């Protein structure tokens, strides 16, 4: 008989499952529209992607059974790999000779993903901690109800009732602190008596992760009306945030309640020995593990049709945000609404009437599956994507912060630095790897367009490696990491990412044409020196898997990471684009204000990068 730890299938660095070596892994991600399957095999010492297949997701009518789409995607894998995996509608497992796979895993965001509401006493403190816990668990946070959010109690009641979340995370108060406010929040939820979004046959799951002293009162108010689960306080004290117990409970309840209600999920759950993970949680998982294992600071972004997810790991702290209405099709019009016309227009390299641009964007919103046919239309979409990414990253920076409300002991020297509590953890100069995924970045006709969009939107500083996840297999790798970190990271590094190359971005402002950087690169063909002027962009070709030792000497007043005017030694990595030198300045980054000058510069940069057809790289 298997022991508890064996049956859970402990993560193992060498890729074993229940003591048996994993030779083949099949993983699916059931998205809202497409179910994507990947087959991974161990080849020698390494795990590699063999093939991928996809099929439309079948959660909605007429099929209403997610497993249909999964089977279709697996059948495509069988065809492409020339290997039998299915026996009728059963996955053959473990692998037997050349048939079957050793393990099957899945993630899911079908049916709108996990939609949650969170509460806290003070919005910027426990409210924000609850939001971070829910987002980190892969949820969409529909609203934060806080004692001090300015709404009257009956307005809060109506809001809870109208939103119909899948789950509520009830937090508030520190352990040993006042109980009144968090109990009041429980009373508001009890009065709203919310009904779950999917199915009326079960009670709404509520996770209580607030002041432990108020547990009895909360149970009294919500115990019979809802499916109440109590876990550790997410903010046991002002100085401490403890999100993991709440995140685990969210995952458990997501499986037991929300997923189990979706059509076909009970069957799907029975196929895998590992719980189905919400897709964004899986993506966060792989990014977090890779960042920690390789001691890197990473930002990842996934820009979709409706939402943009941003993930980061800085100082070992993982954060995730979802910008629910920033996307490239369903939400494209909202990007314009939030960014404002002028911000979108600044990236459009030609003249266009406001009314024309507005109508084009709205027409994309109402016909979201159409694609740009002309170069002009492509440039408009890429202009919008820069703003969607910029806004999503701005929201991320605002949430990925240190704890607010913490008293900091200061010395006299700190008064000059003014590092307030609640300061963002995102340090662009320390960013090692920026990974982009989602249609507009993964399928840009030229890879350099993706690099350029990311540079404009995220404004990395100093040396940063750029990559795209071209086939978006991070979700599958995230759930695989639960079983084998080695298998997941092997495939992530070798097959998942397409390295675009290192970027070098100069901090500081100067006059156009002023010398700002001297770069001495030890390239495969020999040592070369480059003198770069302010206001320019340049590419130096360097292939994937090649590196160049570089000495970067910024001119006086400019900085590439070692301080103003100080030289920096760095190892630059090649990629499908090459090394990108961005000398347009930072802090602040500014585009020319004059319309004609801006278009002239844009054309110049486009030529230097070889970004668009008709403009050869100069």
């Amino acid at each position, binding site marked *: 008989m298997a022991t508890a730890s064996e049956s859970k299938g402990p993560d193992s660095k060498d890729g074993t499952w229940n003591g048996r070596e994993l030779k083949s892994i099949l993983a699916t991600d059931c998205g809202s529209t497409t179910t994507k399957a990947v087959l991974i095999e161990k080849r020698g010492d390494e795990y590699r992607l063999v093939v991928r297949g996809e099929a439309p997701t079948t959660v909605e009518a007429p099929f209403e059974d997610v497993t249909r789409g999964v089977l279709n995607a697996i059948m495509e894998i069988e065809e492409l790999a020339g290997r039998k995996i299915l026996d009728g509608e059963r996955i053959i497992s473990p692998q037997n000779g050349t048939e079957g796979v050793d393990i099957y895993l899945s993630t899911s965001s079908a049916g709108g993903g996990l939609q949650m509401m969170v509460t806290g006493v003070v919005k910027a403190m426990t409210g924000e901690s609850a939001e971070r816990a829910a987002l980190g668990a892969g949820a969409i946070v529909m609203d934060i109800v806080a004692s001090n959010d300015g709404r009257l109690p009956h307005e809060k009641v109506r809001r809870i009732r109208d939103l119909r979340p899948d789950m509520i995370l009830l937090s508030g108060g520190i352990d040993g602190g006042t109980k009144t406010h968090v109990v009041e929040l429980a009373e508001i939820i009890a009065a709203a008596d919310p009904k779950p979004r999917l199915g009326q046959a079960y009670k709404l799951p509520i996770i209580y992760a607030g002041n432990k002293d108020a547990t009895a009162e909360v149970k009294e108010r919500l115990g019979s009306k809802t499916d109440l689960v109590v876990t550790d306080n997410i903010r046991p004290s002002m100085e401490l945030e403890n999100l993991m117990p709440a995140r685990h409970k969210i995952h458990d309840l997501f499986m037991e309640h929300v997923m189990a209600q979706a059509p076909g999920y009970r069957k799907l759950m029975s196929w895998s020995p590992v719980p189905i993970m919400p897709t964004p949680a899986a993506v966060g998982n792989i990014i977090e593990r890779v960042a920690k294992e390789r001691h890197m600071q990473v930002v990842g972004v996934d820009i979709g049709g409706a939402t943009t997810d941003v993930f980061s790991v800085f100082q070992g702290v993982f954060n995730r945000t979802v910008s629910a209405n920033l996307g490239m099709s369903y939400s494209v019009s909202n990007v314009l609404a939030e960014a404002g016309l002028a911000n979108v227009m600044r990236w459009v390299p030609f003249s266009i009437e406001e*009314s024309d641009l507005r*109508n084009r964007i709205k027409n994309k919103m109402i016909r979201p599956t159409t694609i740009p*046919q002309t170069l002009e239309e492509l440039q408009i979409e890429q202009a919008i994507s820069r703003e969607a990414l910029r806004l999503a990253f701005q929201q991320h920076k605002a949430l990925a912060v240190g704890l607010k409300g913490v008293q900091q002991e200061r010395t006299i020297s700190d008064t000059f630095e003014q590092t307030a509590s609640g300061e963002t953890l995102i340090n662009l100069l320390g960013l090692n790897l920026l990974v982009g995924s989602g249609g507009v970045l993964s399928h840009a006709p030229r890879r350099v367009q993706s690099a350029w969009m990311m540079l404009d939107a995220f404004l990395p500083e100093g040396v940063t490696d750029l990559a795209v996840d071209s086939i978006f297999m991070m979700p599958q790798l995230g759930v695989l990491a639960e079983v084998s970190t080695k298998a997941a990271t092997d495939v992530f590094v070798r097959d998942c990412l397409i390295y675009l190359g290192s970027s070098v971005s100069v901090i500081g402002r100067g006059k156009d044409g002023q010398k700002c950087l001297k770069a001495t690169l030890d390239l495969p063909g020999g040592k070369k020196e480059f003198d770069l002027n302010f206001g320019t962009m340049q590419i130096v070709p360097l292939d994937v898997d090649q590196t160049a030792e570089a000495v970067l000497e910024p001119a006086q007043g400019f900085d590439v990471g070692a301080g103003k005017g100080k030289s920096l030694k760095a190892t630059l990595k090649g990629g499908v684009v090459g090394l990108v030198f961005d000398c347009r300045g930072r802090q602040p980054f500014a585009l020319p204000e004059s319309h004609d000058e801006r278009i002239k510069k844009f054309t110049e940069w486009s030529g230097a990068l070889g970004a668009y057809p008709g403009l050869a790289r100069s």
Partner: protein
Amino acid sequence: MAHSYTPGLRVTERARVVKTRRLPLKGQVVVKKGDKVTAETVVARTELPGNVQPVKAASIMGVHQQDLLEYMLKKEGDPVQKDEVIAASKSFFGLFKSQVKSPCTGTVESISPVTGQVILREPPIPVEVHAYIDGVVTEVIESEGVVVEASGAFIQGIFGIGGETTGELVMAVDDPATELTDDLLKPEHRGKVVVGGSRVTKQTIARAKELGVRAVVVGGLDDQDLKSILGYDLGVAITGHENLGTTVVVTEGFGRMTMAGRTFNLLRKLVGKKVSVNGATQIRAGVMRPEIVIPLVAAAGEDAPEGENLGLQIGSPIRVIRMPHFGWLGEVVELPPELRALETEAMVRTLKVKFQDGSEAVLPRANVEAIET
């Protein structure tokens, strides 16, 4: 044969229109299977729980929360009238010192000695669901609602604002390229569903509202006008809840767009009929488009075909739904199986189309929609 499936908007003279009319909460269905109903018939009703009004009773009386129960004159479940005293504190001499009055008529939902709050619930809010179309009740969903079916014409728009309404169909223009200007709307259009041509402006919609026009059906609308009409920049296409007075259905898209001839001609053919219109649009998974339903008595009982879509094939009529040929009609002449490069260099599935003027173009398959026949 190579083919692809690109569904278009439904524009058909004979369709079986099936509408599920469901209550937001369980309640009472007031019609039965087989009943003939009109759009205005109430088919189900229920009561939504009343709003909640919390009262900080302990702090009003200046007493400790834990002692609240001692001062309550009402207990949980008791009915209360507006301004009725629900709690009172006493002085040493037995005189009332301070009172808590109910801010509403309703019942006492809960009394909390932890927060010192009394939660009052207002009376239930009655909700009625109408049939929305003239038809026959074909199914009763116990305690939840009904399914109403009708045979008739069915036209989907691409985008709309405003909710369900009904009225007699009238034409305000003679051809689909004419713009629906405010001078074309007349007092006799009150209570009617007015069909315009290529575009409607905010001025015309304001005039329609003023005249009491129930709905306007047009080819296009400028986004700048939409922003003025709504009072905000619409970010995500989830509409139908706007309280405009006049429902708007756009059949082609944003900008000045000549209404598709097929849609215009069908509407013209049905002038004088009673129609049901809904502007509600949801563009996300489980897409919902605005619609015009015209139940036809002559077609009643006929089991109209559902319009099986075999996908795009050589000879299929299509409409282009993106620049640079937006709105053009044509016929598929080639469906190459391999991916081909666009001007953008993107490699995509394409098709060759012959337009009505005889010219030809290669377009991404994603940028055309099949015109259902």
